[in-house]
């Protein structure tokens, strides 16, 4: 159905270039996850207070 093709030679210059890109994605994504989760946390606490007993 599909062929597996690794576009880069392992540990080549291109691979290291993608590695540095992936570190950028990692920092952005982990920051994003924590920010979203912190927003959820604040909203859950607020939600708990606003809807207590309702």
């Amino acid at each position: 159905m599909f062929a597996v093709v690794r576009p880069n030679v392992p540990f080549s210059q291109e691979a290291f270039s993608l590695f540095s890109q992936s570190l950028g994605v990692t920092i952005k994504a982990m920051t994003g996850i924590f920010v979203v989760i912190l927003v959820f946390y604040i909203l859950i606490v607020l939600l708990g207070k606003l809807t207590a007993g309702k």
Partner: protein
Amino acid sequence: MQELLLGLTSFTIKQIGMLLIAGVLIYLAVKKDYEPALLLPIGFGAILVNIPFSAAIDQIAANGEVQHGPLTMLFNAGILTELFPLLIFVAVGAMIDFTPLLQNPIMLLFGAAAQFGIFFTMAVATLFGYSLKEAASIGIIGAADGPTSIYVASQFAKELLGPISVAAYSYMSLVPIIQPPVIRALTTKSERKIKMEYKPQAVSRTAKVIFPIMVTLIAGIVAPTSVALIGFLMFGNLIRECGVLNKLSNAAQNELANLVTLLLGITIGSTMTADKFLSADTLLIIAMGLVAFIFDTAGGVVFAKVLNIFLKRKINPMIGAAGISAFPMSARVIHKMGQKEDPSNFLLMHAVSANVAGQIGSVIAGGLILALVK
């Protein structure tokens, strides 16, 4: 007679190898009870597609005409369109009770920390020559969440769906074997003995109804590409919590879950043809999946230890490991480990809260990967 023997004489060594692998998957499902609902259909699907000239998948006839097979049709209709994993999300959402998390929202942080393995593995995979999208699909095995792995892989690396799915579901069932040594390596005995007070707070029905809508809106605004992923999960949960759609909730938890799981498994199995599956890439992907699970666990535990530096009431760092999405297996593992150190230590409810947070964390991680990896 020659025509009847054509199937037998056309078998390749690789196809026989795949039949053995399919047998192992079915054995693990039946005898070891490792994720049987998925591994058995995947194993049988692998048998169906590795019989020479199998009519279960598309074949090109001598005249060049394509003879359509039902499994290829199911793959095109259910996986390429991402429909099957999304329908599974509705079912999973209807099964999840977020109450422990709403009672103990601080545990949400572990649902974020324990996604670290996904990104660590993604970075490692790029070093092995994979493109960023393929690497992200491999890393997402660490979401410990089958549908998210399949959803991301079906968008980014369809050619890797077979090994990614097999790795994701196999490791999810192996959580009781993978997590304890990692946790023990990163914690001291006294840390594992830390007791945590549990004060459950009442959660109103209104909060339970608003929660899935709120999560969908926020996650959707931050990463619009995650709307389908988190939206279907939360839709299932809203059906469960609204209190007026019990029949639909039951149907989602049972009929929908069972039917789609069955079709999803056998369709994933259909990607495991010998020429694609038996390769160094498959072994590498399966090995990197293990790395992802190990670093997820480590991420959660280390984060809890860092939090403890600032907290007066210490958190048992093992709870951090429950921030992976493998529910409820991971929570049970942590509770058992706690009891082993100190039989009077009950960590179950804290671990369940972190584990439910992991389910949200893994879906958000999947959504952010879809948004950030170009």
